[in-house]
């Protein structure tokens, strides 16, 4: 009754396509190994063919706390609500719901010029944490949306990070750098002489 020995060629080909789709979306080896029945050697070869590099080594992220800060929480909640819809309403398999849900999530990010904070491996571990009952969906008391939270956290009177962003929200190093670049551009438009300019003109002379 060996499953691997019994697998037909068409089934195997489908597995290969699923693996390619997952690798293209950025899956790590651990995700592939637990979701697919292909051998480790074949998965590594596939990974090299699709990405052109060897699969990264090292452990997967293991902390459920990553999903709690406001921006990652909103993104994780969006992905997980999508995943649940696809799995429960559209009766997709776990793997289909994962790939389709993650594609829909990426699509949302590109359309709204948002950085896709949640990568596929994080999305996969999120589903695992829910299966292991480490996380739960808690309704926000203002917008009634369902958001990712720790199991056994308070269920009532919770306000989500989107309704009430923390005061430091969005003030990242990247946002500060972007603001600095914009400020610099507006200054140079006004033709203010930059102190860094003289050395360059001296070099040219």
């Amino acid at each position: 009754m060996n499953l691997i020995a019994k697998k037909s060629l068409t089934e195997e080909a489908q597995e290969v396509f699923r693996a390619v789709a997952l690798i293209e979306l950025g899956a790590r080896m651990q995700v592939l190994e637990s979701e697919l029945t292909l051998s480790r050697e074949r998965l590594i070869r596939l990974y090299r063919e699709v990405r052109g590099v060897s699969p990264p080594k090292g452990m997967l992220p293991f902390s459920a706390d990553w999903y709690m800060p406001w921006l990652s929480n909103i993104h994780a909640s969006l992905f997980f609500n999508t995943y649940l819809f696809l799995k429960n309403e559209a009766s997709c398999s776990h793997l289909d719901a994962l790939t389709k849900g993650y594609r829909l999530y990426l699509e949302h990010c590109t359309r709204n010029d948002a950085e896709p904070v949640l990568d596929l491996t994080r999305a996969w571990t999120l589903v695992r944490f829910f299966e292991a009952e480490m996380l739960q969906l808690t309704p926000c008391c203002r917008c009634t949306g369902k958001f990712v939270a720790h199991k056994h956290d308070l269920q009532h009177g919770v306000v989500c990070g989107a309704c009430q962003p923390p005061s430091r929200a969005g003030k990242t190093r990247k946002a500060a750098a972007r603001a600095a670049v914009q400020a610099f551009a507006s200054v140079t438009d006004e033709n203010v002489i930059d102190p860094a300019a003289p050395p360059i003109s001296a070099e040219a002379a």
Partner: protein
Amino acid sequence: MSTFEIQESIREINLSYLILAQRILREDRAIGMFRLGLSAEVADLLMSLSLPQVVKLASSDQLLCAFRFNDHMLLSALTQPPKHADIASTHAAVLLAGQPVKLLI
């Protein structure tokens, strides 16, 4: 706007909605259901409609597609503080994705 114009506009919206729904459902049933917020039964029914049936259904005087936000959700999604306007669309997407499908039909 005359009654006739209103009826014509509604008919046009109904027809475009039904044709768009059929097209995206046939492309990928699961993703189509997600985008439209439809239950499996309604999705299958829409997919099975023939073109004459679609035209007949569209030519009613009332709108066939419904508003997916209820007032409460819409208000909170749209009254974001302006400095976090960039997450407003993601917030709305979370609310839409988490909608129970039974409310919609």
